[in-house]
């Protein structure tokens, strides 16, 4: 059983430092197991958030060796253990303690996005009819577990702290799921362009790279919405066409 050194961030919003812990790593262990073992053996006050241990609740987001990951889905056997393994909290949100961040900003953002507004029901009993082909595309976005790793890695939030003017990839995909929904009639393009800062995304695809649900955020949500914004606001020929076309 090899002993592995873990450099774990300890601290709060006022500051902190990496502290070294050693623990045995056994077959099949994930990083979250190691954190629990460290809590049991040497740091009972180490704060860490988790819930399902199955990659489905999105609670255990952190940075392992500098990359945003779910601790419960990061296998120890995939990490080099000849050097210390670093574990830090996410960097784009305020730190509460140790590995636990305050992610409430994300939930506030969500309330600001215009809600689903379906067209009039198709049948008299108040129900709708949809074709699978029409909903195929938006189903991908519904896999999101709100781990906020994509928000964390996005440099617009992480490095440039544009939390006031940019909603981040998770909520662009959330908007895409509504905007591309066959029943929805709401228009969110003006918000996307202005208040939600779609133009801040410079398509570097880091969000796509870290998403544990493998949602193709940049190619399937962000760029298609950028193209819809171009249709509406930047394409002169489209504008000309619209002048002669009755509004739906």
């Amino acid at each position: 059983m090899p002993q592995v050194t873990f450099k774990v961030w300890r601290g709060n919003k006022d500051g902190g430092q990496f502290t070294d812990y050693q623990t045995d790593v056994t077959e099949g262990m994930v990083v979250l197991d190691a954190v629990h073992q460290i809590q049991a053996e040497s740091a009972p006050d180490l704060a860490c958030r988790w819930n399902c241990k199955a990659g489905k609740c999105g609670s255990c987001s952190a940075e392992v060796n500098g990359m945003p990951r779910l601790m419960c889905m990061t296998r120890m056997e995939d990490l080099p253990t000849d050097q210390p393994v670093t574990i830090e909290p996410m960097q784009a949100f305020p730190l509460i303690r140790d590995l636990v961040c305050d992610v409430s900003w994300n939930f506030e953002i969500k309330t600001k996005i215009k809600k689903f507004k379906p067209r009039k029901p198709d049948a008299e009993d108040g129900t709708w009819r949809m074709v699978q082909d029409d909903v195929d595309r938006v189903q991908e976005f519904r896999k999101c577990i709100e781990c906020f790793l994509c928000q964390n890695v996005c440099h617009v939030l992480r490095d440039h702290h544009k939390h006031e003017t940019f909603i981040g990839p998770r909520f662009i995909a959330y908007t895409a799921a509504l905007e591309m929904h066959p029943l929805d009639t709401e228009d969110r393009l003006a918000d996307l362009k202005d208040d939600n800062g779609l133009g801040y995304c410079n398509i570097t695809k880091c969000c796509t790279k870290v998403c544990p649900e493998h949602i193709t955020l940049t190619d399937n949500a962000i760029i298609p919405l950028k193209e819809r914004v171009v249709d509406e606001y930047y394409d002169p020929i489209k504008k000309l066409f619209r002048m002669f076309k009755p509004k739906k």
Partner: protein
Amino acid sequence: MSQSSLSLPQQRGLGQTQRRDAWWLQPLVVFLGLGAFVVYSTWAAFQGANYEFGPYLSPMYSPLLFDAGTLFGQASVGHHTWFGAWPAWIPAFIPASPALIILTIPAGFRFTCYYYRGAYYKAFWADPLNCAVGEPRNGYRGENFWPLLIQNIHRYMFYLAALYIVVLTYDAVIATQFQDDWAAKGGKMLFGGEARAGFGIGVGTLVMTLNVILLGGYTFGCHCARHFSGGNSDHHSKLPMGKKPYECISCLNRNHMKWAWTSLIWVGFTDFYIRMLAAGVWTDWRLF
């Protein structure tokens, strides 16, 4: 442009990261790859000569609106030219190179391509250098303001680039029509026999055909093509041309990065191949 009022960890400096992998490799390869291509294509574009050999025309010089070869000692205007010799009305301060007139289209197309944007923002502007790696600057405007709002022109570049594919397809077809003087210029038959004028396939024909295929895969996998073929609709069951075009384009689009690089490298090689033939360094082999 307001910054967050949240109490956030301090911004990390340039290159600061806890990442252990070779995160610098990807931006470095992009920097060197794109840099090398820009240098080569600029050099090739300013040459103004050695862009055609027999039935082959360099893609960097196509469409050959005006032939500048006569200014560089060529006996007569080559048969690829659309409107004849380099006209006197073009002011002398414009370098006599047909490539400079048309290269703006593929250059503009690639410059505004969503894939390349993401790649060169990292490699040439360090914004970010790579994912979860510290950046050199505090300020950030992204594509939200001028000058980068210009990137929204990409769909117009796509229209022009699609026309370009038509022209290059035409060039590849013309590259099967050999003239009498091809052997005299240094062409050789791979399997012996007489080099007759007319239909034939040479290595150059294959090089140019592959070039169109790769450029076509890149161009028609464009996000704008994806948008027009169905991305702009919420009702994929009711698309005027059905779901197939959207699915095909999405399929190309999934590998857009690979198409982007292979087509870029091959365009450079196609020009280089024809340039080497025209300069008499390499021999063109004809299969039949």
